[in-house]
């Protein structure tokens, strides 16, 4: 999957929308937070961009940045894929976690990066998510999670499946402190991540058009998902089916989160 608009043939100051294919003036595009100024398509953001657009300036303090994936199964091509993930995303893993303030509210935040191995959840993602919830529970802070993931990380086998249970348990720990947990589903939020900590938020927001679903398209196709509606596995489909509170254009995500924090914090 192409991560974001970037077509090398056109000069630096221009960028092509991957949806409507229109050529956009890059400064406009960036000012619109990478939302197509023509068709409204929400291009994927890197985790760092997302943090930049979300929290108060200079408030972000990264935590657990030192965690690195091992290759516990000696799985074919895993080591190579990890190296490639680092190279293409500039990150060490598929999630960045930390503390920050948002409109002055102290929060624990996690932002997944689809550019790192499709945002897949292995041991490091599971551990960082778990520590984020544990830290928030201990310090009585709210949690905001931006999800972007294809699911569990196959290359760690059953260990990565277990991260679903581990992160779920950590959410439970936060729930008992009565601190709010807000999730934002961005493109894509799938499978093992959707079926664990992502779906357990008190309030769930989603960006327009984000892919949100359980089974990958290959599996869904095999299962004869032919009578599927046109918007199957989009944020809009999940919203219609009661799984998402609000679909929020990127520009409105920050004020929406601020309002929810104000309402839900004691």
């Amino acid at each position, binding site marked *: 999957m192409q991560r974001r608009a970037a077509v090398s043939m056109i000069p630096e100051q221009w960028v092509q929308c991957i949806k409507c294919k229109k050529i956009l003036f890059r400064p406009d595009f960036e000012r619109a937070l990478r939302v197509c100024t023509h068709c409204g398509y929400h291009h994927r953001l890197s985790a760092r961009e997302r943090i930049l657009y979300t929290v108060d300036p200079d408030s972000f303090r990264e935590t657990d940045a030192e965690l690195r994936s091992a290759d516990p199964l000696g799985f074919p091509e895993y080591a190579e894929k990890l190296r490639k993930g680092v190279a293409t995303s500039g990150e060490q893993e598929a999630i960045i976690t930390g503390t920050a303030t948002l409109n002055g509210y102290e929060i624990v935040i996690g932002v997944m990066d689809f550019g790192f191995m499709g945002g897949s959840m292995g*041991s490091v993602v599971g*551990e960082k998510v778990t520590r984020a919830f544990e830290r928030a529970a201990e310090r009585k802070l709210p949690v905001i999670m931006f999800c972007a993931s294809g699911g*569990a990380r196959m290359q760690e086998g059953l260990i990565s499946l277990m991260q*679903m249970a*581990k992160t779920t348990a950590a959410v439970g720990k936060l729930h008992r402190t009565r601190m709010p947990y807000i999730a934002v589903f961005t493109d894509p939020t799938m499978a093992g991540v959707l079926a664990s900590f992502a779906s357990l938020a008190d309030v769930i927001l989603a960006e327009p058009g984000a892919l949100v679903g359980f*089974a990958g398209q290959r*599996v869904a196709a095999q299962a004869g998902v032919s009578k599927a509606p046109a918007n199957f596995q989009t944020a809009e489909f999940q919203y219609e089916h009661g799984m998402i509170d609000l679909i929020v254009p990127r520009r409105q995500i920050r004020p929406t989160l601020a309002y929810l924090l104000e309402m839900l914090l004691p």
Partner: protein
Amino acid sequence: MMTIFEIEKPINELESAIAELRQLALEKGLDRSREIAELEAQRERLLRQIFEHLSAWDKVLLARHPKRPYALDYIRLMCESFMELHGDRLGFDDPAIVAGLGKMGGYKLVIVGQQKGRDLKERQQRNFGMAKPEGYRKAMRMFRLAEKFRLPVLTLVDTPAADPGVESESRGISESIAQSMLTLFELTVPTIAVIIGEGGSGGAIALAATNRVLMLEYAIYSVIPPEGCAAILYRDPNKAPQAAEALKLTADRALELGLIDGIIPEPLGAAHRDPQTTALSIRAAVLQQLETLSQLSPEELREQRYQRFRNIGVFQTAQ
């Protein structure tokens, strides 16, 4: 890819021969016991030979064996009594998950199992053991019943995957899996999961966020079906046997990795050759775990469960 029938072919042939001889002896009143004993010894040698060197893929085939006992078979064989209860109280009753109240060795239990069908009709009715959201919501209802009445929970896991269809997606299959795990984590009664056949990904762990996780010897437990993994890894679903190896989805590998708490041995030739003995082995293993877990306080049970999963993960720390 070799099928389970090819692996078992020589054994099946011997078993037919033995049966024929027995029939012949009976009909003609002849003593063929020496011949029969010889063939039986041969059968046992062959079984030992085959089952000593099972590949991961062989175990996948055994876990999916059409004659493998299913949840209700084991429940019938190992419980003194069982009453199935129905419904998620939200509009549905999923036949892919069976649940109810059972007695076993002095314990009163809530039992929740994934149930495949035996013949074509039942297989379709039970959706091949692929639960829909309502299946997990029925399970959750039973978990809450267990909590309220302080009954230990036993889950029997056997599913290729949670149902991936439109209907399930539209009713929140992901949410139901996540909530099922969360509900299990919140319980303060002992909980035990036994993977009896296929432990298929999210569909399986939804019922296995328990204090103890046991696997039958030839059960599998995997983050992705080997075929799916092969399609991604080798761009060839026919390389599922290699993928099965790489995924380390067998009970012995899971135990080595510290992901499960014990392996329940199967009879020679696997569970389907002797469901009764297998059921008694499960029973014994579960009762043993129940005895240990019953020593823990409600809060200790919840904390043990938390720590059990909290500590799973393999990673390094950069300087």
